[in-house]
């Protein structure tokens, strides 16, 4: 099989767009400031003991424990790929209900899904929506799967730079 360079460039651009979207929205709605539930506090304390940053650990724990803007971006990409622009609006409703089931006020997930839908709709002339699914998986792999201590340091630095801690 053949993998062309155009596909790789599209994947890299969509990775950057998804990463910027969910990190900025999650930081703005205060995920690194405090742990919402007990599990996020455990993950943050453990990552601090391993040599990372405490607020970045709270960020990663909140992603694990409730569907925030990261899950919202993935759901928006999937539903835009299957149903078009109306699918993004349905994904907003589903992510809101899932947020409330996981004991969260639901601001971050809802705004993240809606902004991701608008961005995918604006960029859909150049990049097809299926590349955004792969880009979101790549973006979540760089945070949760590659090297946890370094990722928590980067997230803590971004949160401190934006003045949200």
């Amino acid at each position, binding site marked *: 099989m053949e993998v062309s360079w155009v596909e790789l460039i599209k994947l890299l651009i969509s990775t950057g767009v998804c990463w910027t979207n969910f990190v900025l929205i999650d930081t703005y*709605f*205060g995920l690194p400031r405090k742990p919402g*539930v*007990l599990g996020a506090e455990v993950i943050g304390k453990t990552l601090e003991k391993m040599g990372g940053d405490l607020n970045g650990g709270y960020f990663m724990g909140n992603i694990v424990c409730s569907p925030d803007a990261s899950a919202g971006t993935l759901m928006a990409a999937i539903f835009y790929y299957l*149903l078009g622009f*109306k*699918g993004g*609006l*349905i994904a*907003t*409703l*589903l992510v*809101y*209900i899932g947020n*409330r*089931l996981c*004991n969260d*006020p*639901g*601001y971050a997930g*809802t705004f993240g899904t*809606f902004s991701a839908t608008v961005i995918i709709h604006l960029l859909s002339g150049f990049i097809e929506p299926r590349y955004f699914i792969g880009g979101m998986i790549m973006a979540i792999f760089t945070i949760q799967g590659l090297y946890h201590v370094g990722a928590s340091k980067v997230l803590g630095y971004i949160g401190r730079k934006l003045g949200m801690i």
Partner: protein
Amino acid sequence: MLYLYYILSVVISLVVGFIIGLPVEIDVNSFKGNLFFPTVFVALGLTAVIDILFNLNLVFTLLVGIFSPLFSKYVDLIFPGVSYGG
């Protein structure tokens, strides 16, 4: 032309929510709904669901516009925030 129904449902839900007496200011940390936050997104999502399953007309738009502020008013009774008890 079809996007006019979406705008109409959002406008009806905002007017009904203002009549019911939902609070205007936005508090990020509380579990209660206000005039803008769940109301607009619930109205858009329900309109999209009805658009895919059936066809849109004025009756469905009016029903969605009445239902979504009521859902937003009682949202802390439907999905309450749980305190784990220390």
